[in-house]
């Protein structure tokens, strides 16, 4: 392994400079992104923060368009793979929800059934890989992971595909889960040393959830961690029987974060199943809707903290576990912050999972009785979905959702797109063994969507700015800027300290979180709107 790493260092230096293309230096993964963006989150911390400040508050008004790349998803001219029929064309393949990797001047990204390499200097396509699908829910794809010169991405029909980054040619593909059981796969794989961390989704048929690690060379499974226990295992006491825990869901559909020093992988797990009908799964339903720390070498659970015990509103717990290093009362602290879909902001000690703070970040939250001694919310059973309907805030989409929040160490503020939505939740499946969702969520409106800046130490809202967008992907920078959108078609640079807009471009509502990097001495800011990537810089 060492030899290979040494080789890749040499290759990175050589090819990167000469050919403008080449393998990823693995040392980059643990550093703040500067002249590369090598993971979905940019680095392992999930902060969506950049130390770059070439573009800053004093010159952002001059930010202008470098290029636009509109993806072409036609199979014509593409490298074709996949196990589906010849004429297989999935839906939603043209929306970019992932964040491109930018390595040695090339952007690599994926959408449902497609992967692309695009020249990060010009926006021109280098190659296109097309996956013939067997079906599955084509709701989105968060992008790729990179190891040396190899790329990894997941498909809606739940295969892990590995490509040669230079050519886009397939190395291999491996089945993750059975699409007929309603599994579908959206996450961006995360590379931790020689582990390709892979997750999955699927809420419709009460199937078990897990996270797995694969060998980057062979694609073989190294370990599998199930998000619900089996009888006799720790956590089994939070389920009534083996039937409920084996069909208890808990999907792993969001990219993860990692602390190399502690060697802990932070995973936020999805909702339990049946989704809205909780009566066949009395108990807290561990380890669904939880933040867990795993050993990435063994897949063993080190600690867990449940953000939504016995979730009956499809809130998951899968928002980004953001890693913050700070000095508190003179002591260096390793912390984890998470703005959960259920409307509560959590701060944990990430060495042991101990709760330091739990505080609602929306004003309308009405589903809990309070916070218990462990810092976990106590759900109000009266707000479980009922036949006649209950009015709950936030709605099923949540107070926020999958789009990445941002944390700036310069301001100590945690930025998150939020919505104060309400829904009527109806129980539709009264059988003693309800199945699938078992209920309906009907959104009935919002009492205001806001971009919020949360003081991570107190949970206080330092500023909020009304937007139409609610949940949205964000990026903060050392230039004093926070990039986001307003839900009415504007990509905006806000002042990190006040939320005042300083610059905007009416390119449409962004569909991923913005990224930034240096290339040829210029700082680029890149963001996606549906089928197009927009790159900005100072001319």
């Amino acid at each position, binding site marked *: 392994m060492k030899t290979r790493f040494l080789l890749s260092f040499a290759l990175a230096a050589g090819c990167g400079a000469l050919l403008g293309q080449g393998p990823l230096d693995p040392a980059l993964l643990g550093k703040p992104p500067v002249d590369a963006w090598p993971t979905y989150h940019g680095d392992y911390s999930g902060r969506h923060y950049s130390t770059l400040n070439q573009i800053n508050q004093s010159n952002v008004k001059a930010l202008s368009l470098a290029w636009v790349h509109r993806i072409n998803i036609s199979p014509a001219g593409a490298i074709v793979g996949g196990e589906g029929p010849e004429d297989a064309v999935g*839906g*939603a393949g043209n929306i970019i929800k992932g964040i491109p990797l930018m390595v040695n001047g090339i952007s690599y990204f994926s959408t449902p059934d497609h992967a692309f390499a695009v020249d990060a200097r010009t926006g021109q396509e280098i190659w296109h890989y097309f996956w013939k699908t067997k079906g599955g*829910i*084509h*709701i989105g794809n968060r992008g790729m992971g990179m190891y040396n010169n190899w790329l990894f991405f997941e498909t809606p029909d739940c295969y892990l595909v590995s490509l040669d980054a230079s050519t886009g040619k397939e190395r291999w593909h491996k089945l993750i889960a*059975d699409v*007929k*059981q*309603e599994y579908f796969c959206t996450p961006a794989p995360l590379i931790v040393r020689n582990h390709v961390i892979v997750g999955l989704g699927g809420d*419709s*048929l*009460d*199937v078990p959830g897990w996270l797995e690690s694969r060998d980057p060379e062979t694609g073989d499974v190294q370990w599998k961690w199930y998000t619900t226990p089996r009888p006799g295992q720790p956590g089994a006491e939070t389920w009534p029987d083996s*039937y409920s825990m084996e*069909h208890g869901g808990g999907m792993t559909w969001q990219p993860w974060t990692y602390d190399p020093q502690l060697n802990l992988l932070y995973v936020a797990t999805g909702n339990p199943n049946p989704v809205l009908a909780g009566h066949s799964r009395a108990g807290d339903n561990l380890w669904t809707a939880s933040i867990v720390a795993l050993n990435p070498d063994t897949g063993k659970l080190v600690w867990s903290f449940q953000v939504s015990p016995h979730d009956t509103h499809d809130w998951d717990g899968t928002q980004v576990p953001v890693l913050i290093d700070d000095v508190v009362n003179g002591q260096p602290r390793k912390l984890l912050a998470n703005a959960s879909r259920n409307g509560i902001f959590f701060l944990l000690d990430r060495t042991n999972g101990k709760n330091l703070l739990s505080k609602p970040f929306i004003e*309308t939250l009405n589903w809990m009785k309070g916070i218990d001694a462990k810092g976990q919310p106590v759900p109000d059973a*009266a707000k479980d979905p*009922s*036949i*006649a*309907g*209950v*009015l709950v*805030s936030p709605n*099923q989409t949540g107070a926020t959702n999958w789009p990445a929040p941002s944390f700036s160490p310069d301001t100590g503020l945690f930025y998150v797109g939020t919505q104060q939505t*309400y*829904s*009527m939740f*109806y*129980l*539709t*499946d*009264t*059988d003693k*063994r309800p*199945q*699938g*969702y078992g*209920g*309906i*969520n*009907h*959104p*009935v*409106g*919002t*009492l205001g969507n806001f971009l919020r800046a949360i003081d991570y130490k107190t949970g206080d809202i330092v500023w909020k700015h009304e937007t*139409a967008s609610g949940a949205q992907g964000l990026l903060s920078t050392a230039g004093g800027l926070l990039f986001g959108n*307003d*839900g*009415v*078609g*504007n990509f*905006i640079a806000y002042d990190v300290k006040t939320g*005042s*807009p300083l610059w*905007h471009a*009416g390119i449409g*509502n962004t569909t991923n979180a913005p990224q930034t990097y240096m290339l040829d001495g210029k700082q680029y800011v890149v963001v996606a709107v549906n089928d197009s990537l927009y790159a900005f810089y100072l001319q």
Partner: protein
Amino acid sequence: MSTQSNTRVLAMLLLTGAVTALHSQPGPAGKFDEAAIERGKSAYSAACSFCHGSNARGGETGPDLVRSVLVIDDENGKELGAFLKTGRPAAGMPAFNLPENQVRDIAEYLHRLVYAAASRREYAILNIVTGNAQRGEAYFSGAGGCKACHSPAGDLKGIGAKYEPVILQDRFVNPRRTAIPGHPESEGIVANQGKTVRITPAAGPVVSGDLIRISDFHVTLRDAQGVTRTFARTANEPKVEIADALQAHMDLLRKYTDENIHDLTAYLVTLK
């Protein structure tokens, strides 16, 4: 189509915004053979339900077949048929010698149940008229503040006959329509339904109309002539005043108890 399914279709239309955005399964039309399902249901009841339960979700001795990987992976009864020939005697599942067409029918029935469990669009809201109409009337005239704008003898006359309960309930809890999935442009319009805007420029006449869209940089309205106009704006200019005709409904979201909603529904249903 029965009244029951009419209600369901209406409710589904209403809920499409919520449901289709998250789920993209094709409808069952053409996907299933209804006659085969009926035959399969009878055959299932006779041969399988004793162990696997009347709805195939598992019984005293047999496992849940709707969640069975063998059933889910089966194609046209092929895998199911092969399994039934031998059964799993050690686990208490005997072999069944059923004709091939009957196995296909049972498979079709089970696949339909799997589809129904997995397809949120198919879920039907049950009887939501559980409240107390008298209390609902008191809330209408009192704490709810409904009578400030509405009257049972006026605009709400016959409303209970006009709408099914689930739609009636939706009309007061959710007076704004739901955005059309896949049409982001509808989101802004729907979000601002019922809102009017009055714009006072530094110079020139005041302009009013229906609010279409507002951002930090622009405000767009549709005036009485149906003309859409957009004005640039900064933090201070021009003066923008927004009024929401549905504000009382929005305010109720924070005040209602679930019992208030159920009672109000029960009361409105009586206005026939």
